[in-house]
């Protein structure tokens, strides 16, 4: 028995996915990757450019347009303050560089018990060059808020974003990478879910040449619930990578992860890695994660890897699924057998595929923006199909 418990303690003391390097603020702890590392092997490192080299920033900081409901503050803070407020240290070189090169950090604060009727909107506009941002969002206990963080324009952005959610708070946090075609965006978004808090994140990656986000989540007390939704549209030549890690480090916590992507065009590439760790202390955990990819044309590629590590048997449930495929012929046949043309049937299937996520966002502005982008993607799909027939 002693031996077993020693092993268990050893596992607990040095836990965590082997896939996730130890967080650190020190750049030397995040050496320049060679591309052979497990966490980098899918990423075209060459295209990350300034995101990996320690050459400082070359561009103007993002221009921010904000809509802040009363009581909400947005203030510059020192890098040291930003570090102290963060959920955790950077888990990769890009976010370590973000924290190092950001000049000053920014804190968005929603006070305790605030009930925001309107969403907080933060739009960061890139005007070219490489930039670094460290944003810390703090939401006080029992507050209710929706926060939408949207990126547009052109930039090479190293991003570290921390989201600290107080006990009993209810928060929806939306990140939309709505970049111009030439943008590059890498970084680390970390969420800490307070005791009994309910947190929903939505990550939509719509534009840019390359987007690579590590999204980590942990719990600051028991009873928290986390839902993470993701939507991505990947066009020819684009690389979109989401690496998730949910750390069930407290008892009676739940997580549900659902990311969906559609890919079309030559060398469109998506990567989704979803790691879930249920620690020994996290009894009563319930978790499910799923990733679905629709390959709309030839020549695109989706890598999808769910991982589940369980260190206790005392859980409610744990599961994952991953599917990647072309259109389901039986669905198309069924729809067409009712008179619906092939092109319209495909559009129905794709709309349905994303509608299941989009309608759960609960922020009308975001939903309509995503639906608009979806319609544009469908136009490309229809045009491509017609081109194939011609």
């Amino acid at each position: 028995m002693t031996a077993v418990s020693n092993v268990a303690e050893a596992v607990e003391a040095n836990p965590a996915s082997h896939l996730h390097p130890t967080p650190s603020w020190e750049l030397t702890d995040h050496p320049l990757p060679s591309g052979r590392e497990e966490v980098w092997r899918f990423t075209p490192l060459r295209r990350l450019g300034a995101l990996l080299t320690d050459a400082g920033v070359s561009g103007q900081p993002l221009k921010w347009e904000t809509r802040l409901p009363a009581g909400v503050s947005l203030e510059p803070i020192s890098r040291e303050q930003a570090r102290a407020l963060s959920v955790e240290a950077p888990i990769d070189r890009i976010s370590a560089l973000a924290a190092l090169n950001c000049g000053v950090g920014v804190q968005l604060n929603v006070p305790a018990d605030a009930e925001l009727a309107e969403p907080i909107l933060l739009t960061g506009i890139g005007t070219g060059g490489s930039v670094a941002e460290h944003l810390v969002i703090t939401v006080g206990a029992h507050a209710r808020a929706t926060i939408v963080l949207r990126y547009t324009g052109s930039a090479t952005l190293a991003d570290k974003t921390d989201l600290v959610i107080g006990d009993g708070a209810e928060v929806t946090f939306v990140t939309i990478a709505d970049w111009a075609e030439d943008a590059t965006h890498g970084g680390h978004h970390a969420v800490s879910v307070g005791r009994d808090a309910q947190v929903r994140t939505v990550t939509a990656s719509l534009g840019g040449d390359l987007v690579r986000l590590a999204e980590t989540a942990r719990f600051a007390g028991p009873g928290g619930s986390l839902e993470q939704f993701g939507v991505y549209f990947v066009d020819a030549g684009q690389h979109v990578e989401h690496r998730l890690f949910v750390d069930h480090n407290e008892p009676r916590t739940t997580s549900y992860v659902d990311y969906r992507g559609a890919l079309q065009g030559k060398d469109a590439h998506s990567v989704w890695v979803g790691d879930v760790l249920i620690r020994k202390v996290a009894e009563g955990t319930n978790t499910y994660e799923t990733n679905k990819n629709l390959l709309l044309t030839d020549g695109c590629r989706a890598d999808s890897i769910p991982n589940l590590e369980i260190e206790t048997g005392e859980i409610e449930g744990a599961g994952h699924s991953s599917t990647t495929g072309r259109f389901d012929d039986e669905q198309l046949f069924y729809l067409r057998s009712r008179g619906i043309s092939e092109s319209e049937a495909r559009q129905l299937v794709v709309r349905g595929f994303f509608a299941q996520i989009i309608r759960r966002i609960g922020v009308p502005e975001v939903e309509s923006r995503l639906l608009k982008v979806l319609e544009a993607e469908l136009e490309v799909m229809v045009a491509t199909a017609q081109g194939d027939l011609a």
Partner: protein
Amino acid sequence: MSELRISGLHVEVETETGPKEILKGVDLTIGTGQVHAIMGPNGSGKSTLAYSIAGHPKYNITSGSVTLDGVELTEMTVDQRARAGLFLSMQYPVEVPGVSVANFLRTAKTALTGEAPKVRTWVKEVNAAMEKVGLDSTFATRSLNEGFSGGEKKRNEIAQLDLLDPKFAILDETDSGLDIDALRIVSEGVNRYTEAGDRGVLLITHYTRILKYVKPDFVHVFVDGHVVAQGGAELADQLEVSGYDEFVKAAKVDA
């Protein structure tokens, strides 16, 4: 008019060991306003017949013809056949996540008639069709067939038959897996559809029990990819007593 004429229909499917012929020369004419039942043991090719007529890509028609009111269907795409007036109620209706029943029905009706149904009356029509098959109106907002029980899927097929009102319906084992109440509801739906007298039905079934509610004008026994016997409703009664054995044996002797 709703005459479906199948002549000399040969169909094969791709298998690991090469193409395999499933339908071996089917000849069948279903006159306007008639209900024909096709009965046969498992694996006799009944469903292949249904899917081949509807144009499923898995089935390759090597020779023969299928016409609806003189219009050749086999050269058409799946959706063209539907727009020509054909409807297939499937044995296993497919789930389409995220596409609501209401949206699906409106899209299908628009495709079939060439114009979008009027919003106000259409919602009422949909709700009425759902109610007739014992599905409450919340089904209209649910994803198509997703999470429906087997019986609910079949009822939904019959609601579609009502709303889309095709010239000719193939019902592929619509009765299988239904409890007696659902069987009665589905049968009533089929009878309402044929009531006007100008709609044709090809009713494919493994069991005779639906024929207590839906009276066929003709019954065909289907074995080994073709029709081996035909008669009136009394043939179904005979099958009820003696089963398919003698037909299967006879087919083997012939082969």
